[in-house]
């Protein structure tokens, strides 16, 4: 599905990511861990292709095709979708219309039905993101993603700013997006940034990555990694045996 080879990314002339290698297979969900400022969001933005995040070295392949130099909208059309952390407000553009824009490539999108599932019906007539709370933004972003129904979903901290009541709602929306109820022939893949790992109580991940100082330090079982991070922090996690093995393998 997605393959990143030796990717180096600059933001405003500053190197933020260095020599990133990452491979996500069809139907897989990967979790991305790492301390603040380690470059997790930058990686998602670079995969989506935003202009501020320049790939100065390396390649990004999506479904076997080199997309390193494609504009954002063409990546979206090919089947990559992103859940924004802090999306801008667009005055005069209703949430409903935004969801319709997202779903324009799909044949049978019932925005009204999706809104019911996400408890968003009362927001459909409101300007997109105007005065939305943290949790409302997450739900609105998921509404858009579900309408778009992408092959690969890039999900940035889905649990931040969400109360306990809504986190399971968000979890089940992500499960739907990633076709988690398909035991076989699951096509959709995901890359989820999580700080607390809280979302992994609701959404199972197949592979975990630890991103520190702009490089992927470790790739392993996400639940083992989370356990290590909780126990001894990111630094300790890097020192564990698994990491050393994967580091060795990467070499």
């Amino acid at each position: 599905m997605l393959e990143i080879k030796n990717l180096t990314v600059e933001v405003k002339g500053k190197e933020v990511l260095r020599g990133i290698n990452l491979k996500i297979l069809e139907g897989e969900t990967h979790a991305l861990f790492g301390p603040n400022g380690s470059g997790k969001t930058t990686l998602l933005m670079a995969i989506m292709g935003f202009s501020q995040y320049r790939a100065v070295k390396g390649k990004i392949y999506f479904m076997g095709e080199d997309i390193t130099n494609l504009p954002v909208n063409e990546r979206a059309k090919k089947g990559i979708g992103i859940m924004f952390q802090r999306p801008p407000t667009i005055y005069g553009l209703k949430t409903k219309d935004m969801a319709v824009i997202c779903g324009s490539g799909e044949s049978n999108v019932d925005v009204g039905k999706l809104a019911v599932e996400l408890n968003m019906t009362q927001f459909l007539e409101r300007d997109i993101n105007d005065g939305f709370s943290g949790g409302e933004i997450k739900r609105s972003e998921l509404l858009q993603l579900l309408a778009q129904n992408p092959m690969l979903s890039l999900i940035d901290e889905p649990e931040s700013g969400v109360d306990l009541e809504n986190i399971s709602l968000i979890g089940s929306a992500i499960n739907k997006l990633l076709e988690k109820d398909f035991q076989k022939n699951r096509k959709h893949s995901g890359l989820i940034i999580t700080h607390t790992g809280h979302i992994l109580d609701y959404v199972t991940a197949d592979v975990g990555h630890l991103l520190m100082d702009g490089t992927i330090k470790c790739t392993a079982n996400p639940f083992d990694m989370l356990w290590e991070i909780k126990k001894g922090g990111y630094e300790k996690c890097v020192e564990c045996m698994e990491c050393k093995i994967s580091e060795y393998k990467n070499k």
Partner: protein
Amino acid sequence: MRNVSSAWNAKFQNIRTNKIKMIDNNVKLKAQEAKEKKAPLGPDINLWEFSDGAPRYGYLPDVSKLSDGEKKDMVAVGVDASEKNRSGTFVQKDHSVVHSASMQDGLDVMSIDDALKKYGGLTEYFWKAVDPGADKYTAQAELKQTSGYFIKSNKGVKTIFPVQSCLYLASEHLAQNVHNVIIAEEDSELNIITGCSTASHVTSGIHIGISEFYVKKGAKIVFTMIHNWNENVVVRPRSVIIVEEGGTFISNYICMSKTKSLQMYPTVHLNGKNSVARLNSILVAPEGAEMDVGSRVILNAEGSRAEIISRTITKGGKIIARGHLVGNAKNIKAHLECRGLILSDEGYVHAIPELDGNVSDVDMSHEAAVGKIAQAEIEYLMARGLTEDEATSTIVRGFLNVNFEGLPDALKMEIDRAIGPSSVKGM
């Protein structure tokens, strides 16, 4: 007995005409004195450059007999010659009133000259809101008046469909100086859509329009004006609106055409308790256009409320967007919102919001913002699959999507069309 009475009547008639004449002379005098008086705002225009004479056009009992070209120009400003879903129509071409008709009982739609005759000079209304001596344009409208319309809804009458009026410039380099009076009597409701336009072959001219509105107790006027001028046309509307107790005045103004010079500053006086004014304007200035447009509301009575909203876009033209709220009474609430979008380095938007609070217990606020479209907004939409151009026009459409509350569907449709996808194409 009969003789006495008729003699008395004759005498009374005399006094009345004399009185009208006296007022008339006063107005004339003021206008004469203001003939050279420059307006405080907008570039000064040499009125001698324009011609006064226009061909006379015959009256058309059936408005659908207008030429196809004329009909097309009028539809562009919301005036429909088929008169479908309209309760009255007024069409003036250059100086000639070519059609005027009301299709509802208790509703007057006629030329101002007919109204002056019918209502004994309209002494309480004509030049009672707008000062003829305000500037050279008001003066010209008095000294060289070339018709205009009169629309009045009688007490309690509510128009089902909007009344439409069109002021059309068909001759080159002409000065059209109209005077309009609009009255909504107590508890009546009037919806007006008025379009001003130039024939496609006309490249220059001046349009001066005096409009005096009277919203009586409990009445409501929704006034939607769409301007579509050709590039060398100068436009100087002068409008004043008087609102009595519990009355509501809503104005929607749209100008998206390349107009050499447009300057207007309509002023609403909320004189009655709990009266309401809401003024929305949408201005789009292509390269070469100059627009100085404001809205002013003077809140003179307790409990009155006002809202001014303007959305301006420059594609290379110059825009000055003014707004002024004056709070003269307690317990009033007023808000001014002014947003400008700059889509070209050549253009500029100068937003001037002003608030005057003259007593305590007033709640007045304003917000103004001017800038370009944020890259983050464009990329947000691009991440949802839109191209950069589609994203930009979606944002522009949203920006212009003012909540025209309380509009009948017919009017909403006209506005949607005026700011619809085809008009914002290429922004």
